[in-house]
Protein backbone atom coordinates (compact mmCIF):
# COMPACT_ATOMS: atom_id res chain seq x y z
CA UNK A 1 0.00 0.00 0.00
CA UNK A 2 1.27 3.44 -0.88
CA UNK A 3 1.19 6.42 1.46
CA UNK A 4 -1.52 8.08 -0.61
CA UNK A 5 -3.81 5.11 0.07
CA UNK A 6 -3.58 5.42 3.87
CA UNK A 7 -6.42 7.19 5.67
CA UNK A 8 -5.65 10.69 6.97
CA UNK A 9 -5.68 9.79 10.66
CA UNK A 10 -3.07 7.06 10.16
CA UNK A 11 -0.94 9.22 7.88
CA UNK A 12 -0.93 12.11 10.36
CA UNK A 13 0.08 9.71 13.15
CA UNK A 14 3.04 8.42 11.11
CA UNK A 15 4.13 11.96 10.30
CA UNK A 16 3.81 13.15 13.90
CA UNK A 17 5.79 10.09 15.03
CA UNK A 18 8.48 10.92 12.42
CA UNK A 19 8.04 7.50 10.79
CA UNK A 20 7.60 9.33 7.52
CA UNK A 21 7.89 12.96 6.51
CA UNK A 22 5.14 15.26 5.29
CA UNK A 23 7.19 15.74 2.11
CA UNK A 24 7.06 11.98 1.45
CA UNK A 25 3.29 12.03 1.98
CA UNK A 26 2.77 14.89 -0.45
CA UNK A 27 5.10 13.36 -3.05
CA UNK A 28 3.10 10.13 -2.87
CA UNK A 29 -0.14 12.04 -3.47
CA UNK A 30 1.35 14.10 -6.33
CA UNK A 31 2.69 10.90 -7.92
CA UNK A 32 -0.83 9.43 -7.78
CA UNK A 33 -2.23 12.57 -9.41
CA UNK A 34 0.38 12.21 -12.15
CA UNK A 35 -0.50 8.52 -12.55
CA UNK A 36 -4.30 8.67 -12.72
CA UNK A 37 -5.62 12.19 -13.23
CA UNK A 38 -4.74 12.98 -16.86
CA UNK A 39 -5.14 16.46 -18.29
CA UNK A 40 -6.63 19.02 -15.89
CA UNK A 41 -9.94 20.68 -16.68
CA UNK A 42 -9.55 23.60 -19.06
CA UNK A 43 -11.64 25.96 -21.17
CA UNK A 44 -9.89 24.69 -24.33
CA UNK A 45 -9.68 20.93 -23.77
CA UNK A 46 -9.41 19.72 -27.37
CA UNK A 47 -10.49 16.25 -28.44
CA UNK A 48 -10.50 13.61 -25.67
CA UNK A 49 -8.24 10.69 -26.57
CA UNK A 50 -9.27 7.12 -25.59
CA UNK A 51 -6.35 7.12 -23.14
CA UNK A 52 -7.57 10.37 -21.48
CA UNK A 53 -11.13 8.98 -21.33
CA UNK A 54 -9.85 6.43 -18.79
CA UNK A 55 -8.43 9.08 -16.45
CA UNK A 56 -10.08 10.73 -13.44
CA UNK A 57 -9.72 14.43 -14.38
CA UNK A 58 -10.53 15.59 -10.85
CA UNK A 59 -8.31 18.68 -10.93
CA UNK A 60 -8.60 22.13 -12.42
CA UNK A 61 -5.43 23.41 -10.71
CA UNK A 62 -2.62 21.32 -9.19
CA UNK A 63 -0.65 23.57 -6.83
CA UNK A 64 2.38 21.29 -6.46
CA UNK A 65 4.88 24.00 -5.44
CA UNK A 66 2.58 25.37 -2.78
CA UNK A 67 1.96 21.81 -1.49
CA UNK A 68 5.68 20.97 -1.37
CA UNK A 69 6.55 24.13 0.54
CA UNK A 70 3.68 23.58 3.00
CA UNK A 71 4.82 20.00 3.58
CA UNK A 72 8.41 21.14 4.13
CA UNK A 73 7.13 23.67 6.67
CA UNK A 74 5.30 20.91 8.56
CA UNK A 75 8.48 18.81 8.61
CA UNK A 76 10.51 21.77 9.91
CA UNK A 77 7.92 22.33 12.63
CA UNK A 78 8.15 18.69 13.72
CA UNK A 79 11.98 18.72 13.65
CA UNK A 80 11.92 21.83 15.84
CA UNK A 81 9.93 19.87 18.41
CA UNK A 82 6.76 21.91 17.93
CA UNK A 83 3.41 20.13 18.20
CA UNK A 84 1.92 19.94 14.71
CA UNK A 85 -1.82 20.19 14.16
CA UNK A 86 -4.19 17.23 13.84
CA UNK A 87 -3.88 17.23 10.03
CA UNK A 88 -0.05 17.34 10.10
CA UNK A 89 1.13 16.66 6.57
CA UNK A 90 -2.20 15.33 5.28
CA UNK A 91 -2.71 16.17 1.57
CA UNK A 92 -6.15 17.53 0.74
CA UNK A 93 -7.98 19.08 -2.18
CA UNK A 94 -10.47 21.94 -2.29
CA UNK A 95 -13.58 22.16 -4.45
CA UNK A 96 -12.96 25.12 -6.73
CA UNK A 97 -15.86 27.05 -5.22
CA UNK A 98 -13.72 28.21 -2.28
CA UNK A 99 -11.35 31.16 -2.45
CA UNK A 100 -7.73 30.32 -1.71
CA UNK A 101 -5.38 33.26 -1.80
CA UNK A 102 -3.14 33.32 -4.84
CA UNK A 103 -4.87 30.42 -6.62
CA UNK A 104 -7.37 30.55 -9.47
CA UNK A 105 -10.84 30.19 -7.90
CA UNK A 106 -13.05 29.49 -10.88
CA UNK A 107 -16.37 28.02 -9.65
CA UNK A 108 -16.07 25.84 -12.77
CA UNK A 109 -17.22 28.84 -14.81
CA UNK A 110 -15.78 30.84 -17.68
CA UNK A 111 -16.94 33.99 -15.90
CA UNK A 112 -14.42 33.38 -13.06
CA UNK A 113 -11.78 31.51 -15.07
CA UNK A 114 -9.22 34.30 -14.60
CA UNK A 115 -10.14 35.15 -11.00
CA UNK A 116 -7.30 34.81 -8.49
CA UNK A 117 -8.67 35.04 -4.96
CA UNK A 118 -7.12 37.75 -2.77
CA UNK A 119 -8.03 35.91 0.47
CA UNK A 120 -8.56 32.38 1.79
CA UNK A 121 -11.83 30.78 2.87
CA UNK A 122 -12.08 30.06 6.61
CA UNK A 123 -12.41 26.23 6.33
CA UNK A 124 -9.33 26.07 4.07
CA UNK A 125 -7.38 28.39 6.36
CA UNK A 126 -8.28 26.16 9.32
CA UNK A 127 -7.17 23.01 7.50
CA UNK A 128 -3.84 24.60 6.58
CA UNK A 129 -3.39 25.91 10.12
CA UNK A 130 -3.95 22.34 11.36
CA UNK A 131 -1.05 21.16 9.21
CA UNK A 132 -3.01 20.08 6.14
CA UNK A 133 -1.29 20.42 2.77
CA UNK A 134 -3.40 21.69 -0.13
CA UNK A 135 -2.69 19.78 -3.36
CA UNK A 136 -4.94 21.90 -5.54
CA UNK A 137 -8.42 22.86 -6.64
CA UNK A 138 -10.83 20.24 -7.96
CA UNK A 139 -13.60 20.39 -10.54
CA UNK A 140 -17.35 20.76 -9.94
CA UNK A 141 -20.55 21.57 -11.77
CA UNK A 142 -20.55 25.21 -12.89
CA UNK A 143 -21.26 27.26 -9.73
CA UNK A 144 -22.20 23.84 -8.17
CA UNK A 145 -25.32 23.69 -10.39
CA UNK A 146 -25.63 20.00 -11.16
CA UNK A 147 -25.38 16.42 -9.98
CA UNK A 148 -22.85 14.99 -12.43
CA UNK A 149 -20.01 17.51 -12.97
CA UNK A 150 -20.78 17.53 -16.69
CA UNK A 151 -21.83 21.19 -16.62
CA UNK A 152 -18.35 22.48 -15.69
CA UNK A 153 -16.87 24.95 -18.18
CA UNK A 154 -13.59 23.15 -17.47
CA UNK A 155 -13.45 19.96 -19.53
CA UNK A 156 -12.89 17.07 -19.47
CA UNK A 157 -15.17 16.88 -16.45
CA UNK A 158 -14.25 14.38 -13.68
CA UNK A 159 -14.99 10.71 -14.21
CA UNK A 160 -15.96 8.03 -11.74
CA UNK A 161 -12.84 6.15 -10.56
CA UNK A 162 -14.91 2.94 -10.35
CA UNK A 163 -15.97 3.22 -13.99
CA UNK A 164 -14.58 6.13 -16.03
CA UNK A 165 -17.53 5.91 -18.43
CA UNK A 166 -19.76 7.07 -15.58
CA UNK A 167 -20.17 10.37 -13.76
CA UNK A 168 -18.69 10.88 -10.29
CA UNK A 169 -21.90 12.64 -9.22
CA UNK A 170 -21.97 16.25 -8.20
CA UNK A 171 -21.55 18.90 -7.59
CA UNK A 172 -18.53 17.96 -5.40
CA UNK A 173 -17.60 15.28 -7.98
CA UNK A 174 -13.99 16.39 -8.30
CA UNK A 175 -13.66 16.10 -4.51
CA UNK A 176 -15.12 12.60 -4.25
CA UNK A 177 -13.32 11.30 -7.37
CA UNK A 178 -10.00 12.62 -6.01
CA UNK A 179 -10.48 11.05 -2.57
CA UNK A 180 -11.58 7.71 -4.08
CA UNK A 181 -8.54 7.63 -6.39
CA UNK A 182 -6.00 8.44 -3.65
CA UNK A 183 -5.38 11.99 -4.88
CA UNK A 184 -5.33 13.53 -1.41
CA UNK A 185 -6.81 11.94 1.70
CA UNK A 186 -9.44 14.62 2.26
CA UNK A 187 -11.39 17.14 0.25
CA UNK A 188 -13.42 20.17 1.19
CA UNK A 189 -16.79 20.11 -0.57
CA UNK A 190 -20.11 21.90 -0.34
CA UNK A 191 -23.65 20.55 -0.14
CA UNK A 192 -26.73 22.56 -1.17
CA UNK A 193 -29.07 19.72 -2.22
CA UNK A 194 -26.80 16.69 -1.74
CA UNK A 195 -23.63 17.89 -3.46
CA UNK A 196 -21.35 16.19 -0.92
CA UNK A 197 -23.44 13.10 -0.17
CA UNK A 198 -24.60 12.11 -3.67
CA UNK A 199 -21.10 12.11 -5.26
CA UNK A 200 -19.71 10.44 -2.11
CA UNK A 201 -22.21 7.61 -2.66
CA UNK A 202 -21.35 7.40 -6.37
CA UNK A 203 -17.60 7.25 -5.67
CA UNK A 204 -17.64 4.95 -2.62
CA UNK A 205 -16.32 7.48 -0.08
CA UNK A 206 -17.63 9.16 3.08
CA UNK A 207 -19.30 12.56 2.74
CA UNK A 208 -20.73 14.69 5.52
CA UNK A 209 -23.09 17.63 5.17
CA UNK A 210 -22.90 19.32 8.56
CA UNK A 211 -25.75 21.20 10.22
CA UNK A 212 -26.49 24.59 8.61
CA UNK A 213 -24.24 27.02 10.48
CA UNK A 214 -21.81 24.37 11.77
CA UNK A 215 -19.02 25.36 9.31
CA UNK A 216 -18.17 28.90 8.24
CA UNK A 217 -18.87 29.93 4.66
CA UNK A 218 -16.49 32.87 4.59
CA UNK A 219 -14.72 32.59 1.24
CA UNK A 220 -17.30 30.25 -0.29
CA UNK A 221 -18.72 31.44 -3.62
CA UNK A 222 -22.45 31.43 -2.80
CA UNK A 223 -25.20 29.41 -4.51
CA UNK A 224 -28.21 29.05 -2.20
CA UNK A 225 -27.45 31.05 0.92
CA UNK A 226 -30.12 29.40 3.09
CA UNK A 227 -28.94 25.91 2.06
CA UNK A 228 -25.16 25.89 1.39
CA UNK A 229 -23.01 23.89 3.84
CA UNK A 230 -19.26 23.22 3.50
CA UNK A 231 -18.22 19.78 4.70
CA UNK A 232 -15.74 16.90 4.57
CA UNK A 233 -15.18 14.28 1.90
CA UNK A 234 -13.01 11.48 3.29
CA UNK A 235 -12.05 7.86 2.85
CA UNK A 236 -13.51 6.71 6.17
CA UNK A 237 -15.66 7.92 9.04
CA UNK A 238 -12.73 8.66 11.36
CA UNK A 239 -11.18 10.93 8.73
CA UNK A 240 -14.48 12.77 8.26
CA UNK A 241 -14.63 13.30 12.03
CA UNK A 242 -11.03 14.54 12.08
CA UNK A 243 -11.70 17.03 9.31
CA UNK A 244 -15.00 18.28 10.74
CA UNK A 245 -13.21 18.84 14.06
CA UNK A 246 -10.82 21.19 12.31
CA UNK A 247 -13.27 23.17 10.16
CA UNK A 248 -16.31 23.48 12.49
CA UNK A 249 -17.10 26.34 14.80
CA UNK A 250 -17.97 30.02 14.92
CA UNK A 251 -16.22 32.57 12.73
CA UNK A 252 -16.34 36.34 13.18
CA UNK A 253 -16.37 36.65 9.37
CA UNK A 254 -19.62 34.68 8.93
CA UNK A 255 -22.72 35.70 10.89
CA UNK A 256 -24.43 32.40 9.95
CA UNK A 257 -21.68 30.33 11.62
CA UNK A 258 -23.45 29.39 14.85
CA UNK A 259 -21.98 29.87 18.31
CA UNK A 260 -22.37 26.22 19.20
CA UNK A 261 -19.48 24.48 20.98
CA UNK A 262 -17.63 21.92 18.84
CA UNK A 263 -17.58 18.50 20.53
CA UNK A 264 -14.63 16.13 20.21
CA UNK A 265 -15.85 14.21 17.16
CA UNK A 266 -12.79 11.95 17.03
CA UNK A 267 -12.92 11.00 20.72
CA UNK A 268 -16.61 10.14 20.25
CA UNK A 269 -15.51 7.28 17.98
CA UNK A 270 -13.12 5.79 20.53
CA UNK A 271 -13.62 3.78 23.68
CA UNK A 272 -17.23 3.19 24.64
CA UNK A 273 -18.57 3.32 21.09
CA UNK A 274 -20.36 -0.01 21.39
CA UNK A 275 -22.21 1.07 24.53
CA UNK A 276 -23.32 4.27 22.80
CA UNK A 277 -24.75 2.34 19.85
CA UNK A 278 -26.67 -0.08 22.05
CA UNK A 279 -30.32 0.95 22.29
CA UNK A 280 -29.93 3.82 19.80
CA UNK A 281 -33.14 4.19 17.81
CA UNK A 282 -32.51 4.25 14.06
CA UNK A 283 -35.46 4.68 11.72
CA UNK A 284 -36.36 3.43 8.26
CA UNK A 285 -39.01 5.25 6.24
CA UNK A 286 -40.92 3.88 3.24
CA UNK A 287 -40.83 7.43 1.84
CA UNK A 288 -37.10 6.98 1.26
CA UNK A 289 -37.43 3.70 -0.62
CA UNK A 290 -39.36 5.06 -3.57
CA UNK A 291 -38.82 8.02 -5.79
CA UNK A 292 -41.36 10.31 -7.32
CA UNK A 293 -40.21 12.17 -10.35
CA UNK A 294 -41.71 14.35 -13.01
CA UNK A 295 -41.67 13.20 -16.63
CA UNK A 296 -41.52 16.31 -18.81
CA UNK A 297 -42.62 14.47 -21.95
CA UNK A 298 -45.93 13.32 -20.46
CA UNK A 299 -46.36 15.99 -17.80
CA UNK A 300 -47.04 13.28 -15.25
CA UNK A 301 -45.51 12.24 -11.97
CA UNK A 302 -44.05 8.77 -11.79
CA UNK A 303 -43.43 6.78 -8.69
CA UNK A 304 -41.02 3.89 -8.63
CA UNK A 305 -39.18 1.92 -5.97
CA UNK A 306 -35.42 2.28 -5.60
CA UNK A 307 -33.44 -0.49 -7.27
CA UNK A 308 -33.52 -3.85 -5.45
CA UNK A 309 -29.72 -3.75 -4.95
CA UNK A 310 -29.96 -0.40 -3.20
CA UNK A 311 -32.88 -1.48 -1.05
CA UNK A 312 -31.14 -4.67 0.03
CA UNK A 313 -27.88 -2.80 0.78
CA UNK A 314 -29.70 -0.39 3.09
CA UNK A 315 -31.66 -3.16 4.83
CA UNK A 316 -28.43 -5.08 5.29
CA UNK A 317 -26.85 -1.95 6.80
CA UNK A 318 -29.77 -1.80 9.24
CA UNK A 319 -29.15 -5.48 9.99
CA UNK A 320 -25.51 -4.86 10.93
CA UNK A 321 -26.51 -1.94 13.14
CA UNK A 322 -29.15 -4.11 14.82
CA UNK A 323 -26.43 -6.71 15.52
CA UNK A 324 -24.44 -3.94 17.19
CA UNK A 325 -27.43 -3.38 19.48
CA UNK A 326 -29.27 -0.52 17.77
CA UNK A 327 -33.09 -0.57 17.74
CA UNK A 328 -34.36 -0.41 14.17
CA UNK A 329 -37.68 1.43 13.96
CA UNK A 330 -39.60 0.72 10.76
CA UNK A 331 -42.36 2.59 8.93
CA UNK A 332 -41.46 6.09 10.05
CA UNK A 333 -43.65 8.45 7.98
CA UNK A 334 -41.78 11.22 6.16
CA UNK A 335 -44.66 12.31 3.92
CA UNK A 336 -43.14 15.56 2.61
CA UNK A 337 -39.94 13.97 1.29
CA UNK A 338 -41.30 13.95 -2.26
CA UNK A 339 -41.80 17.72 -2.21
CA UNK A 340 -38.12 18.37 -1.57
CA UNK A 341 -37.19 18.76 -5.23
CA UNK A 342 -40.06 21.03 -6.37
CA UNK A 343 -39.47 23.17 -3.26
CA UNK A 344 -35.77 23.28 -4.11
CA UNK A 345 -36.53 24.28 -7.71
CA UNK A 346 -38.06 27.46 -6.32
CA UNK A 347 -35.99 28.40 -3.25
CA UNK A 348 -32.55 27.60 -4.65
CA UNK A 349 -33.22 29.43 -7.92
CA UNK A 350 -34.34 32.59 -6.18
CA UNK A 351 -31.19 32.55 -4.05
CA UNK A 352 -28.95 31.64 -7.01
CA UNK A 353 -30.34 34.43 -9.18
CA UNK A 354 -29.69 36.90 -6.38
CA UNK A 355 -26.15 35.62 -5.82
CA UNK A 356 -25.30 35.63 -9.54
CA UNK A 357 -26.17 39.28 -10.14
CA UNK A 358 -22.72 40.28 -8.90
CA UNK A 359 -20.98 38.83 -11.97
CA UNK A 360 -21.04 41.79 -14.32
CA UNK A 361 -17.53 42.19 -15.74
CA UNK A 362 -16.72 45.25 -13.64
CA UNK A 363 -14.60 44.40 -10.59
CA UNK A 364 -13.26 40.92 -11.33
CA UNK A 365 -13.68 37.93 -13.60
CA UNK A 366 -14.50 37.84 -17.29
CA UNK A 367 -15.37 40.93 -19.32
CA UNK A 368 -16.45 40.68 -22.95
CA UNK A 369 -13.70 41.67 -25.39
CA UNK A 370 -16.36 42.78 -27.91
CA UNK A 371 -16.88 46.48 -28.61
CA UNK A 372 -19.89 47.78 -26.68
CA UNK A 373 -21.89 51.00 -26.84
CA UNK A 374 -22.51 51.36 -23.12
CA UNK A 375 -22.43 49.73 -19.69
CA UNK A 376 -25.70 47.71 -19.95
CA UNK A 377 -24.50 46.18 -23.22
CA UNK A 378 -21.20 45.25 -21.54
CA UNK A 379 -23.18 43.53 -18.73
CA UNK A 380 -25.30 41.57 -21.21
CA UNK A 381 -22.45 40.43 -23.42
CA UNK A 382 -20.22 39.57 -20.46
CA UNK A 383 -22.91 37.46 -18.81
CA UNK A 384 -23.99 35.87 -22.10
CA UNK A 385 -20.43 34.79 -22.89
CA UNK A 386 -19.26 34.10 -19.33
CA UNK A 387 -22.12 31.99 -17.96
CA UNK A 388 -22.88 28.48 -19.19
CA UNK A 389 -26.41 27.17 -19.65
CA UNK A 390 -27.01 26.14 -16.03
CA UNK A 391 -26.38 29.55 -14.41
CA UNK A 392 -28.47 31.21 -17.12
CA UNK A 393 -31.35 28.83 -16.48
CA UNK A 394 -31.16 29.34 -12.71
CA UNK A 395 -31.12 33.11 -13.05
CA UNK A 396 -34.19 33.07 -15.31
CA UNK A 397 -36.10 30.63 -13.09
CA UNK A 398 -35.20 32.52 -9.91
CA UNK A 399 -36.30 35.84 -11.36
CA UNK A 400 -39.59 34.39 -12.60
CA UNK A 401 -40.70 32.65 -9.41
CA UNK A 402 -39.78 35.63 -7.22
CA UNK A 403 -41.41 38.24 -9.47
CA UNK A 404 -43.98 40.29 -7.59
CA UNK A 405 -46.98 38.74 -9.37
CA UNK A 406 -45.79 35.13 -8.90
CA UNK A 407 -43.95 35.09 -5.60
CA UNK A 408 -47.02 34.27 -3.50
CA UNK A 409 -47.83 31.29 -5.72
CA UNK A 410 -44.26 30.03 -5.93
CA UNK A 411 -41.66 31.44 -3.56
CA UNK A 412 -43.81 32.00 -0.46
CA UNK A 413 -45.55 28.68 -0.96
CA UNK A 414 -42.20 26.89 -1.25
CA UNK A 415 -40.98 28.50 1.98
CA UNK A 416 -44.10 27.21 3.75
CA UNK A 417 -43.73 23.70 2.31
CA UNK A 418 -40.19 23.88 3.65
CA UNK A 419 -41.72 24.19 7.12
CA UNK A 420 -43.60 20.91 6.53
CA UNK A 421 -40.39 19.16 5.43
CA UNK A 422 -38.65 20.35 8.60
CA UNK A 423 -41.64 19.17 10.69
CA UNK A 424 -41.33 15.61 9.37
CA UNK A 425 -37.85 15.51 10.89
CA UNK A 426 -38.84 17.27 14.11
CA UNK A 427 -41.54 14.67 14.69
CA UNK A 428 -39.24 11.74 13.89
CA UNK A 429 -36.48 13.02 16.20
CA UNK A 430 -38.72 14.37 19.01
CA UNK A 431 -37.41 12.73 22.24
CA UNK A 432 -40.94 12.79 23.65
CA UNK A 433 -42.62 11.73 20.42
CA UNK A 434 -43.75 8.48 18.93
CA UNK A 435 -40.54 7.60 17.06
CA UNK A 436 -37.77 9.18 19.20
CA UNK A 437 -35.13 8.53 16.56
CA UNK A 438 -31.44 9.25 16.98
CA UNK A 439 -31.12 8.96 13.20
CA UNK A 440 -32.93 8.03 10.03
CA UNK A 441 -31.22 5.51 7.73
CA UNK A 442 -31.93 5.93 4.00
CA UNK A 443 -30.35 5.27 0.62
CA UNK A 444 -28.23 8.30 -0.35
CA UNK A 445 -29.27 8.07 -4.00
CA UNK A 446 -32.09 6.38 -5.94
CA UNK A 447 -29.56 4.79 -8.36
CA UNK A 448 -25.82 4.14 -8.53
CA UNK A 449 -23.61 6.36 -10.76
CA UNK A 450 -25.16 6.86 -14.19
CA UNK A 451 -23.24 6.89 -17.52
CA UNK A 452 -21.79 10.16 -18.77
CA UNK A 453 -24.33 11.77 -21.10
CA UNK A 454 -27.27 9.67 -19.88
CA UNK A 455 -29.07 12.41 -17.94
CA UNK A 456 -27.23 15.64 -18.72
CA UNK A 457 -29.39 18.07 -20.67
CA UNK A 458 -32.62 17.10 -18.89
CA UNK A 459 -32.39 19.54 -16.00
CA UNK A 460 -35.52 18.20 -14.32
CA UNK A 461 -34.44 14.55 -14.26
CA UNK A 462 -30.92 15.55 -13.14
CA UNK A 463 -32.35 17.44 -10.17
CA UNK A 464 -34.28 14.38 -9.05
CA UNK A 465 -30.93 12.60 -8.40
CA UNK A 466 -31.00 14.63 -5.16
CA UNK A 467 -34.42 13.47 -3.98
CA UNK A 468 -33.19 11.72 -0.82
CA UNK A 469 -30.54 14.28 0.07
CA UNK A 470 -32.30 17.62 -0.44
CA UNK A 471 -34.73 17.34 2.53
CA UNK A 472 -31.77 17.71 4.92
CA UNK A 473 -30.80 20.97 3.22
CA UNK A 474 -34.32 22.36 3.56
CA UNK A 475 -34.42 21.27 7.21
CA UNK A 476 -30.83 22.37 7.96
CA UNK A 477 -30.03 19.04 9.66
CA UNK A 478 -26.79 17.06 9.22
CA UNK A 479 -26.45 14.10 6.86
CA UNK A 480 -23.69 11.53 6.48
CA UNK A 481 -23.25 9.29 3.44
CA UNK A 482 -21.09 6.22 3.79
CA UNK A 483 -20.23 3.36 1.44
CA UNK A 484 -22.15 0.18 2.30
CA UNK A 485 -21.44 -2.12 -0.64
CA UNK A 486 -21.50 -2.51 -4.41
CA UNK A 487 -24.08 -3.35 -7.03
CA UNK A 488 -23.56 -6.31 -9.41
CA UNK A 489 -21.81 -3.99 -11.89
CA UNK A 490 -19.22 -3.06 -9.28
CA UNK A 491 -20.60 0.42 -8.61
CA UNK A 492 -20.58 1.73 -5.03
CA UNK A 493 -23.81 2.12 -3.04
CA UNK A 494 -24.14 4.76 -0.32
CA UNK A 495 -26.30 4.83 2.79
CA UNK A 496 -27.35 8.09 4.36
CA UNK A 497 -27.80 8.84 8.05
CA UNK A 498 -29.85 11.92 8.94
CA UNK A 499 -30.06 13.30 12.47
CA UNK A 500 -31.27 16.27 14.51
CA UNK A 501 -29.49 19.66 14.49
CA UNK A 502 -25.84 19.39 15.56
CA UNK A 503 -25.96 15.58 15.93
CA UNK A 504 -22.88 15.01 13.75
CA UNK A 505 -21.13 13.09 16.54
CA UNK A 506 -23.98 10.56 16.73
CA UNK A 507 -24.11 10.10 12.94
CA UNK A 508 -20.35 9.55 12.87
CA UNK A 509 -20.65 7.01 15.70
CA UNK A 510 -23.29 5.04 13.82
CA UNK A 511 -21.16 5.18 10.68
CA UNK A 512 -18.10 3.99 12.58
CA UNK A 513 -20.10 1.16 14.16
CA UNK A 514 -21.07 0.00 10.66
CA UNK A 515 -17.41 0.12 9.60
CA UNK A 516 -16.45 -2.04 12.58
CA UNK A 517 -19.27 -4.48 11.87
CA UNK A 518 -18.17 -4.94 8.25
CA UNK A 519 -14.40 -4.86 8.77
CA UNK A 520 -12.77 -7.63 6.78
CA UNK A 521 -15.69 -8.09 4.38
CA UNK A 522 -14.49 -8.81 0.84
CA UNK A 523 -16.08 -5.66 -0.63
CA UNK A 524 -14.06 -3.50 1.74
CA UNK A 525 -10.83 -4.39 -0.07
CA UNK A 526 -12.04 -3.56 -3.59
CA UNK A 527 -10.07 -0.85 -5.35
CA UNK A 528 -11.33 1.61 -7.99
CA UNK A 529 -10.87 0.50 -11.59
CA UNK A 530 -8.62 3.44 -12.43
CA UNK A 531 -6.08 2.18 -9.87
CA UNK A 532 -6.15 -1.37 -11.21
CA UNK A 533 -5.67 -0.03 -14.75
CA UNK A 534 -2.80 2.19 -13.65
CA UNK A 535 -0.96 -0.62 -11.85
Amino acid at each position, binding site marked *: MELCDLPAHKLARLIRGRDISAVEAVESALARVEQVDGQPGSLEPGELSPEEARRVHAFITVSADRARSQAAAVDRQISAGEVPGPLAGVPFTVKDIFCV*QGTPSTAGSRILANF*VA*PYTATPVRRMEAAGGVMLGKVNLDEFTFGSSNESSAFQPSPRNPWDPARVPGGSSGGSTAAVAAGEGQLSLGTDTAGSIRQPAAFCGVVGLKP*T*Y*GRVSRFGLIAFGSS*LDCPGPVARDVTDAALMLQVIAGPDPFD*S*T*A*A*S*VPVPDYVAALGAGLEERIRGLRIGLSPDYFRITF*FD*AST*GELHEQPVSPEIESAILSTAGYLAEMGADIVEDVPMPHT*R*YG*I*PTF*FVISRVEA*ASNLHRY*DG*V*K*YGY*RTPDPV*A*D*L*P*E*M*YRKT*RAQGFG*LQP*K*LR*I*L*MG*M*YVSAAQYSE*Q*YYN*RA*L*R*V*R*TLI*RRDFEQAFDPGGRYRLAALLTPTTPTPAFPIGAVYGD*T*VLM*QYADQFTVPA*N*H*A*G*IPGLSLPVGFDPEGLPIGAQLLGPDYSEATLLQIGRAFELATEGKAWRSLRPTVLEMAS
Partner: protein
Amino acid sequence: MTNEIDQETFAHLVRLAALELSPAEAEYLRQQLNNQLKAVQELAAIPLDPGTPVTLHGVPFTSETRPPIRVDEWVPFAHTEEILEQAPETEERHIVVPEIPHTELE
Protein backbone atom coordinates in the same frame (compact mmCIF):
# COMPACT_ATOMS: atom_id res chain seq x y z
CA MET B 1 -50.01 20.76 -19.48
CA THR B 2 -49.38 24.00 -21.38
CA ASN B 3 -46.17 25.92 -21.27
CA GLU B 4 -46.47 28.72 -18.76
CA ILE B 5 -43.77 30.97 -20.21
CA ASP B 6 -44.37 32.14 -23.76
CA GLN B 7 -41.73 33.70 -25.97
CA GLU B 8 -42.67 37.24 -25.04
CA THR B 9 -42.47 36.66 -21.28
CA PHE B 10 -39.22 34.79 -21.80
CA ALA B 11 -37.69 37.67 -23.77
CA HIS B 12 -38.70 40.03 -20.98
CA LEU B 13 -37.02 37.80 -18.37
CA VAL B 14 -33.85 37.64 -20.46
CA ARG B 15 -33.68 41.43 -20.57
CA LEU B 16 -34.26 41.72 -16.82
CA ALA B 17 -31.53 39.15 -16.20
CA ALA B 18 -29.05 41.20 -18.28
CA LEU B 19 -28.45 38.29 -20.64
CA GLU B 20 -28.37 37.79 -24.39
CA LEU B 21 -29.20 34.38 -25.85
CA SER B 22 -28.74 32.77 -29.23
CA PRO B 23 -31.98 31.40 -30.72
CA ALA B 24 -30.89 27.82 -29.95
CA GLU B 25 -30.02 28.68 -26.34
CA ALA B 26 -33.30 30.53 -25.91
CA GLU B 27 -35.33 27.60 -27.21
CA TYR B 28 -33.58 25.07 -24.94
CA LEU B 29 -33.72 27.27 -21.85
CA ARG B 30 -37.37 28.21 -22.32
CA GLN B 31 -38.30 24.53 -22.65
CA GLN B 32 -36.30 23.58 -19.54
CA LEU B 33 -37.81 26.49 -17.62
CA ASN B 34 -41.31 25.36 -18.52
CA ASN B 35 -40.49 21.76 -17.57
CA GLN B 36 -39.20 22.89 -14.18
CA LEU B 37 -42.32 24.97 -13.61
CA LYS B 38 -44.46 21.92 -14.38
CA ALA B 39 -42.54 19.97 -11.74
CA VAL B 40 -43.10 22.84 -9.32
CA GLN B 41 -46.89 22.67 -9.87
CA GLU B 42 -46.87 19.72 -7.49
CA LEU B 43 -46.55 22.22 -4.63
CA ALA B 44 -49.88 23.81 -5.53
CA ALA B 45 -51.71 20.61 -4.56
CA ILE B 46 -50.34 20.45 -1.00
CA PRO B 47 -52.96 21.39 1.57
CA LEU B 48 -51.42 24.23 3.58
CA ASP B 49 -52.91 25.40 6.84
CA PRO B 50 -53.18 29.21 6.59
CA GLY B 51 -51.16 29.39 9.80
CA THR B 52 -48.18 27.49 8.37
CA PRO B 53 -45.23 29.85 8.75
CA VAL B 54 -42.42 30.23 6.22
CA THR B 55 -39.02 28.67 6.95
CA LEU B 56 -36.15 30.85 5.77
CA HIS B 57 -33.48 28.38 6.82
CA GLY B 58 -33.99 25.05 8.54
CA VAL B 59 -32.05 25.47 11.76
CA PRO B 60 -33.40 28.09 14.14
CA PHE B 61 -30.83 30.59 15.42
CA THR B 62 -31.53 31.33 19.09
CA SER B 63 -29.97 33.88 21.39
CA GLU B 64 -27.48 31.17 22.43
CA THR B 65 -26.52 30.04 18.95
CA ARG B 66 -26.61 33.36 17.09
CA PRO B 67 -23.10 34.79 17.02
CA PRO B 68 -22.70 38.16 18.71
CA ILE B 69 -22.52 41.16 16.42
CA ARG B 70 -18.93 42.18 15.74
CA VAL B 71 -17.61 45.52 16.88
CA ASP B 72 -17.84 47.85 13.89
CA GLU B 73 -14.15 48.44 13.41
CA TRP B 74 -12.35 49.60 10.29
CA VAL B 75 -9.59 47.13 9.46
CA PRO B 76 -7.41 47.90 6.43
CA PHE B 77 -6.95 45.02 3.97
CA ALA B 78 -3.28 44.22 3.45
CA HIS B 79 -3.46 43.19 -0.20
CA THR B 80 -5.41 45.91 -1.98
CA GLU B 81 -3.23 45.49 -5.09
CA GLU B 82 -4.40 41.88 -5.37
CA ILE B 83 -7.99 43.13 -5.43
CA LEU B 84 -7.30 45.79 -8.05
CA GLU B 85 -5.38 43.30 -10.20
CA GLN B 86 -8.63 41.39 -10.66
CA ALA B 87 -10.41 44.29 -12.36
CA PRO B 88 -10.67 43.89 -16.15
CA GLU B 89 -9.71 47.54 -16.75
CA THR B 90 -8.18 50.11 -14.40
CA GLU B 91 -6.69 53.57 -14.65
CA GLU B 92 -4.71 55.07 -11.78
CA ARG B 93 -6.29 52.65 -9.30
CA HIS B 94 -9.81 53.42 -10.57
CA ILE B 95 -11.94 50.74 -12.20
CA VAL B 96 -12.93 51.72 -15.74
CA VAL B 97 -16.32 50.84 -17.25
CA PRO B 98 -17.92 51.72 -20.60
CA GLU B 99 -20.18 54.74 -21.02
CA ILE B 100 -22.96 54.84 -18.41
CA PRO B 101 -26.24 55.96 -20.05
CA HIS B 102 -27.36 59.20 -18.45
CA THR B 103 -29.29 62.37 -19.12
CA GLU B 104 -27.84 65.78 -18.45
CA LEU B 105 -29.67 67.65 -15.71
CA GLU B 106 -30.41 71.27 -16.45
